[in-house]
């Protein structure tokens, strides 16, 4: 009989173990929550070098930027204005700049703003320069001009931005190096923009740290654009200035929502030793549109 007791206890223990194992199995096989994309950090794209311009491993020639793009930015986009509405959708009054870190020079210039003078000088496009263009209500058309050049057209002010990838940059060179080697021609509203596909993990860029210490996957990079050589312009359509030494740094995140919506989030950082006390950062949203049927080009305007 005692063997039956042993056997009974063993069966009972086995049953307990089976029950305890079940939640672990359940968790391991659990699908992503509703409204979330499944984790893609371990898949979705091959392993890349995590370096700008498509990089290049070892002695291999760097891949063209188009071929190494972690996401597709091309197409028609529309800005979605839910933040800072009354400073973006309509021209704000003179002096509406208390939220911008202007220094005294900047405040004086902003207070003296006169749109009639801009019109008389043919400077209506001062608010359509690169440093403020992406924060405007506008539609975008993005296309590849060639394998290493991204082109962006806006219907607001009918402007064109050109992003040149630092593809020919030797491996290990930084974005700043690539920028400084760009030809410094005459200043334009849109300046000279150098682009790079950049990893979020410092380790993948040759720096220390990083989250898991692993190389970033190709899909985990974002577009970083550095723009210099701009003509002096306005951050806001009420004369808030940026100067010719301003440097614009933009970070483009593109993702697809579970409901199929494609979004592009642009983080815009402006450094200006002439008129700003510190870096000024804002974020703009864009939603992808199926076609260009709502494209509506308008000329630069100093008043609207």
């Amino acid at each position, binding site marked *: 009989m005692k063997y039956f007791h042993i056997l009974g206890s063993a069966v009972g223990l086995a049953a307990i173990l089976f029950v305890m194992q079940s939640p672990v199995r359940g968790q391991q096989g659990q699908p992503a*929550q509703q409204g979330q994309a499944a*984790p893609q950090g371990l898949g979705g794209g091959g392993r890349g070098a995590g370096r700008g311009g498509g990089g290049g491993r070892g002695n291999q020639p760097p891949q063209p930027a188009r071929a190494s793009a972690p996401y597709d930015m091309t197409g028609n986009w*529309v800005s979605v204005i839910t933040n*800072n509405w*009354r400073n973006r959708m*309509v021209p704000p009054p003179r002096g*509406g700049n208390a939220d911008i870190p202007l220094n005294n020079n900047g405040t004086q210039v902003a207070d003296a703003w006169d749109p009639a003078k801009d019109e008389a000088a043919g400077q209506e496009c001062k608010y359509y320069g690169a440093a403020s263009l992406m924060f405007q209500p506008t539609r975008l058309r993005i296309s590849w001009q060639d394998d290493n050049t991204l082109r962006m057209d806006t219907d607001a002010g009918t402007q064109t931005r050109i992003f040149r990838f630092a593809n020919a940059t030797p491996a290990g060179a930084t974005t700043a190096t690539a920028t400084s080697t760009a030809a410094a021609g005459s200043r334009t509203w849109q300046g000279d923009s150098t682009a790079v596909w950049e990893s979020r*993990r410092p380790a993948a860029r040759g720096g220390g740290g*990083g989250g898991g210490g692993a190389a970033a996957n190709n899909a985990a990079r974002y577009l970083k654009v550095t723009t210099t050589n701009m003509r002096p312009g306005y951050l806001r359509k009420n004369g808030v200035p940026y100067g010719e030494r301003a440097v614009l740094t933009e970070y483009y995140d593109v993702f697809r929502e579970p409901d199929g919506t494609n979004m592009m989030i642009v983080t815009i950082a402006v450094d200006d030793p002439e008129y700003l006390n510190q870096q000024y950062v804002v974020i703009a949203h864009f939603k992808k549109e199926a076609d260009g049927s709502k494209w509506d080009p308008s000329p630069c305007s100093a008043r609207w």
Partner: protein
Amino acid sequence: MRANPDGGKTMRRVAFTVGAVLISGVVTFTQNQINAGRAVPQDRGVDLTGNWNSGQWTEGGGPGGPNDRRPYDFLGMPLNEAAKAWALSHDESRLSEPERQCAYYTPVYHPFGFGGLNMWREDEYQTGSVVAWVIGGFQDFKPQVIWMDGRPHPGPLEPHRIEGFTTGVWENDVLVTTTTHMTQGMLHRRGPHSDRATLTMRFSRHDNILSLTGRVDDPVYLTEPMYVSKEWRLGNNMAGANRAAPPCTVTYEGVPTGDVKHYLPGQNPNVDEMTKMWGIPVETVMGGAETMYPEYRKKLKQTYKRPEVRPVGRTRQGNV
């Protein structure tokens, strides 16, 4: 009962075999438990640890800031008619009601608000697997736990709490979180979100800038998802960071218990405040999805009257 004919040898063999199988099972089970966090390589994303200082620029200075929204400013908000009715019945003094002093700061306030972020990661101490990311509390804001261990959201009948329930995943090195089970709260502190709202947040780090994009889906009060964003910069003052929020303490702020401040339909006296101050037509100030898109500017071109200079002064909402 019949005696065992072989003196119990067969039973001993059976018991020994079963015992060996069980011991083997116990060892395997234990290994499985230990390896539970390692069985599937866990995506640990990028490091978001730190004290992040609020930029407060995307929304013009944030609540209380120099370009804060006025109480009846619903510009660029895809509110439906029910939301507008709720918002126009709302009196700012409600925030002083003892029953509501702690009520409005759900996680939706992260991308709308003005606070800094103190973030850290909680690891399981034996396996090293990531259990959660945590956003520290801030004033009336409760700490927010973002569960990373794959646990499910509560069921539809589970209670809602002001902090909701949040899970997270890494999506191409962007921390994507989903929050459900919140109580009713506010969008921009000016429009309502219901307790059926879902908040999706994307924490995207670029060098030392942290960009947060929030998306609010609300079948009760929004006609389409509302996106808002906010920026922070990494600070170096971890010593000053608080890991636990002080509790929201109800005090007397001039509104007696049970007194519900409100306006009846059609009787809100401040509905034209934005028009008087900023020249923006009343129908635009009431918001709606169409006010979010560039083509809406055509409607405004003939009706908007730009003030010559920025209005200044002090109102019950603070400095203008």
